[in-house]
């Protein structure tokens, strides 16, 4: 099952959390992956439109969202599609 916004996928593929820059602010644009992952992320506030801070993009990824710090394993980080937020 795919959970994503169809039009956000550019030709070279969308940026995923594991490729985001350290300390970057990024906006979630989609989540691809199983239903369990989507529900878990949704409950923690990681849904399309939300802006999060990337403490570290991988190994495991660490993100700050809504004041909470969340560790995200690599497969899940690869499933979170983001776009850079320009301040």
């Amino acid at each position, binding site marked *: *099952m*795919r*959970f*994503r*916004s*169809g*039009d956000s996928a550019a030709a070279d593929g969308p940026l995923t959390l594991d490729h985001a820059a350290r300390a970057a602010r990024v906006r979630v644009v*989609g*989540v691809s*992956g*199983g*239903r*369990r*992952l*989507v*529900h*878990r*992320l*949704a*409950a*923690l*506030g990681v*849904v*399309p*439109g*939300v802006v999060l801070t990337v*403490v*570290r993009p991988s*190994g*495991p990824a*660490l993100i*700050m*969202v*809504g*004041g*909470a*710090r*969340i*560790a*995200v*394993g*690599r*497969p*899940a980080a690869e*499933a979170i599609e983001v776009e850079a937020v320009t301040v």
Partner: protein
Amino acid sequence: MTTTIAITGSPNAGKTSLFNQLTGAHQHVGNWPGQTVERHSGTFTVAADQFEIVDLPGTYGLVAVSAEEAIATGYLADERPEVVVTVADAAHLSGSLHLVAQVAEAGLRQIVALNMCDVADRRSIEIDDTVLADQLGAAVVRTVARRGSGVDRLKAAIADAAAAETPAPPLVVDYGPVAERHLSLLVDAVISCPAVEDLGAPRWIGLQLLAGDEAWRARVAAVPGGNEVLAVANTNRDAIADETGFEVELVLAERRFDWISRLVGTATGSEGTGAVWSDRVDRVLTHRWLGLPVFLAVMWIVLQVTADVTAPYLNWVDAMISGPVSRWAVGVLGFFGLAGGWVESLVVDGVLAGVGAVLVFVPVLFALYLMLALLEDSGYMARAAAVMERGMRALGIPGKAFLPMMVGFGCTVPAIYATRTLDSSRDRLLTGLITPFMSCGARLPVYVLLASVFFAGRAGAVVFAMYLLGIGVAIAVGFVLSRTVLFEEEPAPFVMVMPEFRLPNPRTVWSLVKLRTGEFIRGAGTVIMVTSVGVWLLLSIPVGGDGGFADTEVEDSAFGAASMAVAPVMEPLGFGEWEQAGALFTGFIAKEVVVSTMAQLYSVEEPSPETASSSVGEDLRKVVSSFVTATGETVRAIPAVVGLDLVDIDQEPSGELQSAIRTSFETSSGGDGRLAALAFMVFVLLYTPCMAAVAAFRQEFGTKWMWVSVIGQFMVAWAGAFIVFQGGRMLGLG
């Protein structure tokens, strides 16, 4: 009349602390997501009204992702408690409101306990509770559960809510034009089917069906007409996905989170951010490479504290039981004219020998549980799980399996139950099968005893090696299982909240240590007492020779006969003597009794030494003075943890038991006593932890898997011991 209410909240919001404050019960409170597994309940009264409160497992929302969350969501859906107290973390309001909003949408009468207000205040997060209360349609009470403030107001709010006549109107969140149109079609279908409508608020049922919640689908499918409603749900699910280009789960989550963000925006000025220093610490602690040495260093300190620092107390308790306490018991029996007969034998050789051999290790377990509680309460445990995720997943083991495995260092039974924190039944089973290989506290006494006899001076290193071997075997078995029987294409995602670092709360740590140590002592008082007395009975029943009851040679007893039957199986492992087989035999019942059985078997072989008579007064003086000495030695042993060896605590083993064990292993192995002892330790590490663990396993995974687990462990243990003993011999070690 008693009113039943439930308390819920996301993990680490302080739910269990608040539950303790409400009921006065002391319970386990930890710091990793999904800690509370069992359903605890307690009672309290407000004026004349009696309330029963059920502590539900922590959950982030009402769509269950893990089995543990399913317990909480299932309870709320099926029992529909009259009042639900939802604990929200004031310092992370938006993270907590997901659950709060869903409870309100479900039409449950809710009280929001805005907890950790002190942390929010420190971060200058101002929350307007009237806005919250108004928007959510729920009473909001500020609390600081760790200090107990706000608890009386919470009780009063619960009593008010329970007394309210009108039902709570469900919260309505706007899910956008497309979803709302399809939702209303589905709600119509729900309302037209009375059996489904009876299950709860129609809009809520519709939402849960749209979201694809498995539990709700099953609940609806089970009632008459339910399948028609499900068909309508499926049609509308597909339609929403087609029209929006998003899957339904994302559409609903996005709109709900929008609603939450707006609420947080109006109720608070701005949302605080976590501490910067905490980010830096987390970058190191959860770092791919840096995190691992930190983790190993922490484990090393934990094991050193439990093995070495407590040693003087261990010796003190041992000396007390075998000395003064046994003398006093004989004295008391003599007063009643029972000295010298089978009653004295039962008390001294059965009861005191058994319980005594367990009690000597209470200091060890106390220290172990203290260290684990400090790790949990400080927030380090979750970091350790994050560090382990990457490497463990590569080996086919989910990172979250690390939590039960870590608990397994304490005791396998809670570790088996802790597998419920994993997200899928496959991950749970895999973790359940490998967790018993983690060396539990009850196995430690066996290593300590044998290592002190055969590896004096290096006992700590040998014990540490056993722990590492347990981890290694667990990983190897997990690797094999994940690629064979339990192969899966799509592993569960690793997403875990890192709780705030905080100074461990002495009260929380103390109650946790007390609870766990108490459990061990109660175990010692029941299972182990029964076993010890049972073994004494088997030892007392003659099946050969010419002795009478309680007056027979061990090899002529029922126990001797049974052990001799088992012994040949162990012969290739270097410990084929029937006493050794007998000790392992009783280890099936509880690992703690391996040592006490040895104590019993070896001491009953020779006449018990005449104890020098001494007065009660002298004994008491000795009890106190030796305790003071032990305390002094412990204090001096603490620097040894970090490598400063101020005092030699690895004393040359002495005493009857030690020399009997040495002789026995040297004989059984044909001179390679050390190898045989090592093989014995490996066997003890790897075979069935105990009856209680098997019972827990059966409860969680069923009888079939229980047998797979028991037989598999025996085979692994036998093979492991065989490799150590025969391999060691071949290499000329010994």
